[in-house]
């Protein structure tokens, strides 16, 4: 057990000059997927609520498919399904993108979290009190400025608790990256287990690291809620 920890504490936590650590990779996967997913989900959510009917249907089909199938299957389709097509292999630009496991993983995670975030934000936009919109219209706000100044600030605040759940689920989902050979925390744990055959220690360390990130995220979101949802807190 001591040998395992001695040999693997660096891959788990700090990494080496040519490799980033499992911890850094897991954090990077979580942050980049959630960031891109959120940026794409914002217009998609508005389109889901107020777009023309063909846009609403398109986004609805997208979220239906990505929320109704396991992320693992989505990852397999993007990572091994698409790259196995000769058509993709023989097209230089596309081929080099799909050959890289990290690209495929980030693409799959982003599409997945974007689908969940779209529905979550769409729900928050729909729940905007009518009075807020009417008041804004009576003051001459319309179109983009109505959304930018009134609807979105209030909807994003309302979506914050649900979004914190989504980010934590995404953190947990990044452990699937190890199945696509990306060296995140779980991949390091699997390597350590293969070397020493001490599954409880190897996966136990991984579990503790994930739990630590999870509690840190919960703490960060609680701070965010205190800041942005202060007007809704019952005390004072």
């Amino acid at each position, binding site marked *: 057990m001591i040998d395992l920890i001695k040999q693997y504490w660096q891959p788990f936590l700090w990494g080496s000059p040519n490799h980033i650590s499992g911890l850094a990779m897991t954090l990077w996967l979580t942050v980049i997927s959630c960031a891109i997913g959120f940026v794409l989900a914002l217009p998609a959510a508005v389109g889901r609520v107020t777009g023309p009917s063909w846009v609403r249907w398109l986004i609805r089909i997208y979220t*239906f*498919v990505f929320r*109704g*199938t*396991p*992320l*693992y*299957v*989505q990852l*397999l*389709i993007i990572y*091994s*399904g*698409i790259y*196995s*097509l*000769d*058509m993709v*292999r023989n097209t230089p630009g596309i081929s080099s993108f799909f050959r890289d496991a990290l690209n495929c993983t980030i693409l799959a995670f982003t599409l997945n979290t974007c689908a969940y975030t779209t529905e979550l934000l769409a729900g928050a936009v729909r729940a905007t009190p009518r009075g807020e919109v009417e008041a804004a219209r009576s003051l001459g706000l319309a179109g983009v400025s109505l959304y930018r100044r009134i609807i979105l600030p209030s909807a994003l605040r309302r979506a914050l608790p649900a979004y914190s759940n989504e980010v934590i689920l995404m*953190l*947990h*989902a*990044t*452990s*699937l990256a*190890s*199945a696509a050979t990306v060296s995140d925390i*779980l991949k390091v*744990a*699997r390597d350590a*287990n293969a070397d020493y*055959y*001490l*599954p*409880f220690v190897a*996966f*136990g360390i*991984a*579990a503790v690291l*994930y*739990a630590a990130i*999870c*509690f840190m995220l919960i703490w960060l979101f609680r701070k965010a809620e205190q800041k942005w949802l202060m007007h809704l807190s019952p005390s004072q």
Partner: protein
Amino acid sequence: MNGYLQQLIAGTVVTIELATLSLLLAFGLGLAGAAARLSSKRWLAMLGTAYTTSIRAVPDLVLMLLLYYSVQNWVNLITDALDQPQIEIDPFLAGVSVLGFIYGAYFTETLRGAVKAVPRGQLEAAAAFGLNGWQVFWRILFPQMMRFALPGISNNWQVILKATALVSIIGLHEVIYAAEAAIKGSSWPGGGQVLFYLTMVALLYLLLTTLSNFVFAYLEKRYAAGFERLSQ
């Protein structure tokens, strides 16, 4: 290709069995966990909290590998010490117990919330009528808490159904395993067989999640009998 499609269907049946049995185990554990968390005994409540907090903080895949490989390792150590032949843990049994154990933590929280949503007066009235503890639970508490619990249960079910995909990683012959076998055994011009079989798997999951939505919509309507629907 027909043989592979049959395997895919057989794999789907394993997936459904796995998800259903895991759901039942998780529901049972969730009831026990909720009872523990709501118990007036401090150590029981703390045990319940430790269970839900630690399990829900760690990814299901990590827990699955941790539990499956650790238990197998311990079983090996015991059989070695006793000079017995090695026992391989059955992946189906492992899958059901691990998924049940993990999602039991999520059910604990869902059911705890549902129990607390039933007005206390209902239970006090039942006790006043002379019902014993079991009767109060089965006739009064359970039918009423299900109305509050169903949206959460439906959510958990969808998550369990999708989590069964992970059990192929510990070697269970479910639908993804069948698809991978089909992919290995066939070679199409243009290399489309991988995408084809994986898309079939995705469609099967989509079918299952959509069908279960209908079932839960029916159940929610049934358990809401006598209550007005507020929205829609």
